[in-house]
């Protein structure tokens, strides 16, 4: 019984610690503002684009490139801040599909035009 609890504890802990975010920010350039946003996190007042999707790629493809385009939330088409989140579920998904399905959980803010 003790062994099962211990195993569950270790699994739970590794599940939690495997979820983390990494943020990269340019030293130069101002982030695109969004006066209509009412976020209360690090991105307060900024125009944040959030991607939370699963990309399916060919088994023969090594990796993929997600293109940041000029759009309403990214008028310059240039990145200022990007944050990606690593999740246990994402790693598991990639593992069981042999890399065919890749979980993408990214937030980014573009450079102010």
């Amino acid at each position: 019984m003790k062994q099962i609890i211990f195993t569950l504890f270790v699994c739970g802990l590794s599940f939690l610690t495997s979820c983390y975010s990494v943020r990269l920010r340019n030293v130069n350039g101002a982030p695109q503002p969004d006066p209509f946003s009412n976020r209360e996190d690090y991105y307060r007042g900024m125009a944040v684009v959030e991607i939370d999707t699963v990309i399916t790629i060919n088994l023969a493809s090594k990796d993929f490139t997600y293109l940041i385009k000029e759009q309403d939330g990214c008028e310059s088409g240039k990145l200022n801040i990007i944050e990606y989140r690593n999740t246990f579920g994402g790693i598991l998904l990639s593992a069981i599909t042999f890399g065919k399905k890749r979980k993408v959980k990214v937030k980014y803010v573009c450079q102010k035009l």
Partner: protein
Amino acid sequence: MATTKIKQLNEWNTLHSNGPFPLKILYQTKLEGERVMPSKIERYNDAALEIQRLIKETKHAGEGFRAYGSAWSMNNIASNKDRMHFNGFMNISMPIHANECHQENTYDPTNLFLFECGNTIKEISETLAEHGKSLKTSGASNGQTIAGCVSTGVHGSGIDSGSVQDYVVGLNLIIGPNTEDNIFLEPKSKPVLLDNFVNSLNSRVIRDDDLFHAALVGLGSFGFIHGVVVEAEPVFLLKRYVKKIDKNLAFELANTMDFKNSAFVIPGESNAQGKANRPFHFKIFINQYSDDSDCVVEVMYKKPYQKNYPDPFPVIKESLYRDLIYLFVRLAENCPKSIPWLVKRLGNTILPEEQKETTGMLKEIFWDAPYQGPAFACSFGIHHRNSEKAMNLLSKLTREEGPIPGIFALRFVKGTKATLGFTKFPITCVIEIDGLLWKKTRKIMSLEEYSKRMIAVLKENNIPFTIHWGKNSYWKFPGLVNHMYGGSSDKWVEERKKLLSSEMQDMFTNKFIRIVGLD
């Protein structure tokens, strides 16, 4: 054509959540694209027409109108209950050429630039750096828009360089919906731009010293600031030191500003006789809850620009768990006695790292300040000779009637010419307490009550003072503005009446202006 998005709202808040304040309509104007309208002057003039259209629309509705930029002010100075305009996307910049300067211009034309209202300090600094130039000074960070900085008197700690408004040499104001309501205001005694150039901005020139100085720190009430002409200077480096020194020595410097004859000498920052050089920037950090005889000071010296200086940025910047900050706030509200302990624990996060030396351009030293949750700041301007006395009084108040979740810092700024500039003393000592925004409980007084007591204590002790227009205070304190500025406040009101029609005075008056009696 510049385009405006409209959003119907019930309320609006500042970046640091000092509201919410009521609001009906929020406008957001974006410039016409460069591909469609490549000429900067054309796009600038096109945006002015759009602003005039919005002013006309507001006038017909009989409502109030107020522009804002980054929402960094911590009170309702930027708010209007009717209509507000976000100008952050209006960020054209243009260097001024010698042939665009007035015949009597005394500035080096290569130092002159026109910036549209929504340019942030960061954007301006980067534009200037591309021309080998720099702002003369900035606030402690770089996210404010230039129009917001000028309107509220944003300052750094430039002992001999003043506040942001002090390097603004001309203002392009939109004071109504008609063609003649687009004006360029500059002092008669120091004209900058050629009439023909001003006319190319669809503006008419007004040269008037008193009007210019009143409009400089205009509190958002002299119309819509569309652009400012700033005087920059050749890019320079700042060498920053953080030292722990005896409090008595720090206050001796604060009270006298006599660095030359002080015992505080940093090796390498003295003259041939071993006397200390005068720093560009001087800041004292005071933890009012600590009885340490030493305090941390931040000192910066101006150096000529050279390539290959050490990288001033760390690779990693950590930030505290937001939940931890909220936990501290809850603890402070329910157990105020824990505040001194909490402040001590947060010491490494609040105070700069001791013994650290950094070199960088102004824009690198005063870099981004990421949002860290609801915050407050109360900031007083006093004559530097009263620094120690005022600091002791405010510390005592904070300890005995608080504690309050924040710590003090003192900065020193050259006096301003702006009629209502809060850095009005020859060298103003800015005493500021900033920290986490809390809510009143049975055990801790409210921010409003604390602010009121701070004013009362300085008054009781006959210390002349001013208050930063963009910070928290008890603005309802009876006769406050008159006490702070005397006749200058009447002069400011008179100059405003000279410039704006009564209809436009109403439109550009908000609750803040009414509360402080400047309407």
